[in-house]
């Protein structure tokens, strides 16, 4: 029988052929959480009476959310998680300064194609870009996985997004996934697996693919699957079991013309409120943020630096750059990208989630406007309830920082 890639991964794991809609108890190959959700994971384990987790070598904790801690309470809670990591003898514990969990876990090669991965963070779907099944859950679910090595789930149907053509210059995979979010909506993929495919996806880098899969949850999806290839293996430093969907297994499919796509932004309030950038050009921007698990990788910094080189951030705008990992930070430093940002007047912050979730390192004030490479523009997400966030590509964020208003990056690349 024809099966989707995600059905094949789960079938391989549970040891029998499963199809979409079935509830299964599924073994989990790898699990992770961060300093934020880690606190509640430990609470749940304690209440469950679990002293030793089942497989400490298949579990990672990465401190990224409150890094460095912004309050005494945040530091106190982190100390609790750190103590737990030591007690459990976790070899894959990464204290603050290493990066964002969704970046660090694949960078370290903890996962491989064909695996089933669960993380206590909604953007765990990012790892679907490595040809594996990954999804986000809450802390209690993760504690159950740590105690038993498995969890329940409903095998998802797959909605395949065929991305035809190749992205043009200054149009990134962020623009592409925003366009897809516009089409699918904030809940159009609920309980489904998204599968990104087509020439544009095959041609793009592994980092760009991670940006696509990262946004799957913003459409309600469980994961954002992308078939593994040599780029995947090069990023991870390892291969695994490669699965792909049989043509007859996909019952729902949409097509997107990536070749004719132009830069776009998600306007405030909803990630699906996506418009061509030209329709909102000129909106004043108080803060430009380049970073996050969506767009804080080396190529994102590189594309932004191409625009910022020899230019200045507008005097009415502040720009914050936060690399997604220490490895990204170090490479950007070696290659001179950080000099370009600093000379342009941008600030470069400590690796981690940065201002994405509106608690530190660039919280925006009443009625202020941010343009951000992150993934959420909900009401009050980055600060005051009256503030607003436009989600955009690294190129658009850089161009907008220079002009102090939403600006089409193609103006700078002619």
């Amino acid at each position, binding site marked *: 029988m024809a099966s989707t890639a995600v059905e094949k991964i789960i079938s391989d794991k549970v040891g029998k052929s499963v199809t979409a809609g079935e509830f299964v108890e599924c073994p989990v190959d790898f699990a992770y959480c961060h300093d934020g959700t880690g606190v509640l994971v430990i609470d749940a384990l304690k209440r469950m009476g679990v002293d030793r987790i089942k497989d400490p070598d298949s579990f990672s904790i990465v401190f990224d959310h409150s890094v460095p801690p912004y309050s005494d309470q945040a530091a106190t809670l982190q100390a609790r998680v750190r103590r737990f990591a030591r007690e459990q003898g976790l070899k894959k514990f990464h204290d603050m300064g290493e990066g964002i969990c969704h970046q660090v876990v694949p960078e370290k090669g903890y996962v491989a194609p064909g695996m089933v991965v669960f993380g206590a963070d909604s953007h765990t779907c990012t790892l679907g870009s490595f040809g594996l099944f990954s999804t986000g859950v809450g802390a*209690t679910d993760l504690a159950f996985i740590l105690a038993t090595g498995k969890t329940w789930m409903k095998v998802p149907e797959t909605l395949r997004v065929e991305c035809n053509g190749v992205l043009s210059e200054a149009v990134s995979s962020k623009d592409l996934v925003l366009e897809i979010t516009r089409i699918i909506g904030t809940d159009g993929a609920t309980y489904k697996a998204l599968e990104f495919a087509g020439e544009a996806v095959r041609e793009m880098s592994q980092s760009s693919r991670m940006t696509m899969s990262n946004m799957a949850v913003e459409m309600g999806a469980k994961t954002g699957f992308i078939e593994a290839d040599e780029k995947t293996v090069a990023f991870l430093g390892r291969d695994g079991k490669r699965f792909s969907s049989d043509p007859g297994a996909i019952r729902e499919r949409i097509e997107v013309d990536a070749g004719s796509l132009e830069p776009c932004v998600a306007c405030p309030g909803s990630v699906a409120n996506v418009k061509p950038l030209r329709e909102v050009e000129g909106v004043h921007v108080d803060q430009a943020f380049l970073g996050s698990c969506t767009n804080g990788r080396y190529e994102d910094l590189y594309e932004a630096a191409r625009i910022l080189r020899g230019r200045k951030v507008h005097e009415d705008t502040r720009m914050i750059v936060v690399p997604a990992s220490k490895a990204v930070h170090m490479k950007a430093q070696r290659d001179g990208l950080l000099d370009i940002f600093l000379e342009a007047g941008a600030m470069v912050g400590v690796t981690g989630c940065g201002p994405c979730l509106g608690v530190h390192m660039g919280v925006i004030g009443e009625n202020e406007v941010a343009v951000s490479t992150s993934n959420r523009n909900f009401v009050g997400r980055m600060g005051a309830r009256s503030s607003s966030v436009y989600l955009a590509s690294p190129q658009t964020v850089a161009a907008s920082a220079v002009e102090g208003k939403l600006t089409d990056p193609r103006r700078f690349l002619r």
Partner: protein
Amino acid sequence: MIRGRVWKFGNDIDTDVIIPAKYLRSVDQSVWPKHVLEGVDPEFSSKVKPGDIIVAGKNFGCGSSREQAALAIKWAGVAAVVAETFARIFFRNAINNGLPLIEAKGISGMVEEGDVIEIDLDSGLVKTPRGEVKSAPLPPFLQDILRSGGLVEYYKAHVKRDQK
């Protein structure tokens, strides 16, 4: 049977408005219900009474996996959440923490704020002053988790016992 007064919300109520991130890193967990749904209605936590029911549109609980969203609602005394649809992580978090929820298509158009409605989790029936909405009940093992009071209690009662 759950019977309670309705507080009504719209579509796409995300976990950032249910409990803004600035309250998450708190050693004192009792702060969460004090800020529940603050991003939509800053007065909500002072208005909601134990036993009340939240009725919402589609995609309730979308966004972050923060379990504090389900906990804030539960600890504010909300007896159940009825929505057109739920985002999947919130759905799991609610069940895992013993917060009853039910997906009832068409519910938004049938209730007004302040109505008293009745929910039967076993049958999936929701009774409103303007008629009934029948929805699929939760699968039996999810009802078991809910009845146990959440996944931690379920683990202690079932999984841990079996391991011994």
